[in-house]
């Protein structure tokens, strides 16, 4: 924006609001211009970084995909050191989606229940400290969850697995051949535990903002607490819960170390969730990286690009929902 030149133009009868503001700010002083340049520059730098991520990943990815003998989207193999190289993301995409969906199915209802517990059920003296502890749990590094998952959770899941196999094995999805429970279901359970704090936190904030007047009106009409929640709190919080879940989904999709420690990967699609095997984008990058050649790294970057695009879409959607809600809740207030 050409700031100095515009100011020298003789103002019309009524100078526009922006010009008045600009004159009031004294934006022509050198200190101001430098500082504005500095702050705007770092804002632009953020945009440049985002663009650079997309450009560089795409560039390295095309290098790899152009030499891929298999179909990048449908091949069930990851053999980058072979000549010619054959690799594809079919198994990774399947595993990433399945493990994240399991995590969502388990975590979202429980997180909503905990959020309701904190805002509407828990004694006030308890809810503060509990919310604080959940905040802290969101900060536990994912590698610690991974270590716990591999050394504590996995040995404890044999019982659940044999139970599922005995009663639901006929569906095919819950058939268990007896291997160590390092399967997609375990990954899903661990991811659910990991995203629980963030989904709970965001949902709690939304439920807390539910209009007190409507809740009290419902109570005054003789509604029970559950009826108040069902009729006044949940409808208000629905979009908030959706965006909270999508933020959790974004975390689950990109989670690397916890999956890499718990899963025993292979390159097959297993119909049973209890069969060890499969893989996710992030886990595959972490486990294949150390023995990858330079070309193999490009191939991993290509799979990372797909993950990047997926998380962008999920997070963008979540933010759009939050932004829309902000607008009409502002009108309410």
């Amino acid at each position, binding site marked *: 924006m050409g700031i100095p030149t515009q100011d020298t133009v003789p103002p019309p009868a009524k100078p526009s609001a922006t010009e008045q503001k600009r004159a009031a*700010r004294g*934006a022509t002083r050198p200190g*101001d211009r*430098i*500082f504005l340049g500095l*702050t*705007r*520059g*770092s*804002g*632009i730098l*953020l*945009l440049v*970084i*985002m663009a650079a*991520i997309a450009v*560089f*990943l795409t*560039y390295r990815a095309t290098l790899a995909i152009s030499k891929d003998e298999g179909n990048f989207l449908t091949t069930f193999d990851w053999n980058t050191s072979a000549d010619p190289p054959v690799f594809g993301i079919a198994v990774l995409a399947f595993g990433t989606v399945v493990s994240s969906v399991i995590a969502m199915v388990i975590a979202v209802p*429980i997180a909503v*229940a*905990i959020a309701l*517990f904190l805002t509407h*059920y*828990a004694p006030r003296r308890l809810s503060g400290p509990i919310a604080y502890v959940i905040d802290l*749990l969101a*900060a*536990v*590094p*994912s*590698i*610690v969850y*991974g*270590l*716990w998952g*591999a*050394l504590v959770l996995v040995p404890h899941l044999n019982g659940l697995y044999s139970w599922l196999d005995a009663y639901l094995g006929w569906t095919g999805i819950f058939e268990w051949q007896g291997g160590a429970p390092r399967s997609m279901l375990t990954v899903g359970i661990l991811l659910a*535990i990991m995203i*629980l704090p963030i989904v709970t936190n965001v949902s709690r904030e939304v439920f807390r903002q539910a209009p007190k007047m409507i809740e009290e009106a419902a109570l005054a009409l003789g509604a*029970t*607490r559950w009826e108040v*929640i069902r009729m006044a709190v949940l409808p208000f919080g629905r979009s908030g819960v959706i965006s909270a879940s999508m933020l959790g989904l*974004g975390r689950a*999709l*990109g989670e*690397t*170390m916890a999956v*890499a*420690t718990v899963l025993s990967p292979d390159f097959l699609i297993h119909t049973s969730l209890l069969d060890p095997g499969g893989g996710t984008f*992030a886990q595959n*990058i*972490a486990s294949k*990286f150390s023995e990858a050649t330079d070309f193999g790294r490009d191939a991993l*970057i290509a799979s*990372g690009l797909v*993950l990047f695009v997926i*998380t*962008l879409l999920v*997070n963008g959607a979540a*933010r759009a929902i939050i932004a829309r809600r902000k607008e009409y809740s502002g009108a309410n207030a």
Partner: protein
Amino acid sequence: MSHAVVTDKRPSTLRGASLPKWFAWATAAGSLALAVGIGLAAGLHSKVQWGLIASILFVLGTYVISAKVEGPRQAKDRVATSVVWVAFLLAVVPLVSLVWTTVSRGVKVLDGYFLTHSMGVVADDEVGGGIYHAILGTAQQVGLATLIGAPIGVLTAIYLVEYGRGKLAKSVTFFVDVMTGIPSIVAGLFILSLMLMLDMSYFGFAGSLALAILMMPVVVRSTEEMLKLVPNELREASLALGVPKWRTILKVVVPTSLGGITTGIMLAVARIAGETAPILLLVFGGNFINSNPFEGPQQALPLYIYQQYGAGSSAGYDRAWAASLVLIAIVMILNLAARGIARWKAPKAAGR
């Protein structure tokens, strides 16, 4: 309130029959006892199964009894209450187990020796060794990342709050939101693609760059919130005295919200200190002390945990737990200190 003794005797026509307050506790105790009985009778070994049976009995029993006495609406309310309580207790189990295992297994090998020695001459399945090189690496990598990420984040937030109008500010806001969701491994791959292009090998600073990318959006978000809390009267008063805008920002706005900004930066530091994936791709780890973050592979605490777990020996597991305990302690101390600062500085930040 004084007690209205007279009306207590007569059943009120305005209220239906209701169960006494101890009903929930009694049902809980009853279903627990019944579940233990069933568990013993059926020979179920897993305590988790006992707990599940107890919670199912609790929810069912609450509904049946309450529906009989109070009617279906109250019964549904009681079921919702008990489901919410059960969900809460269910979620607490793994989280408590996580903290408990880390602490109880972590203290086994955690001592002064562990903190002050590297893994230099220790094989993976031998006992001994320590995390000095990992702590050093983490401190350097996170420190450098903070030096890059925090100023850029704070400046961007100042731009968005103090100057930002129009398309540029809108797109920066949107992409900061999107950037918070970038998986850490993608940030690592980005720096890796740069390194491949420049034909460079592993070094600590590369990890710092990836961590800085992860840190920036978090700092922008929290700083923005803090700057918005500064009352406009302060800015106007300063501007009215003829102070240039940039000095107003640096001398009035930023100092007023300094506590909050510091809190945000510390929370961001706590977040990146636990990142493993970028370090794995860019810094590569190692067993030796390397105090130069600009040359050669370095170790970091999260990656150390991963590699000790990967070693697969019980000595390695012990070291992994101890390192986890140290990492959690660092992250928690940062978190608690940040919140402490937030609370201590809160009245000033609110401008009251």
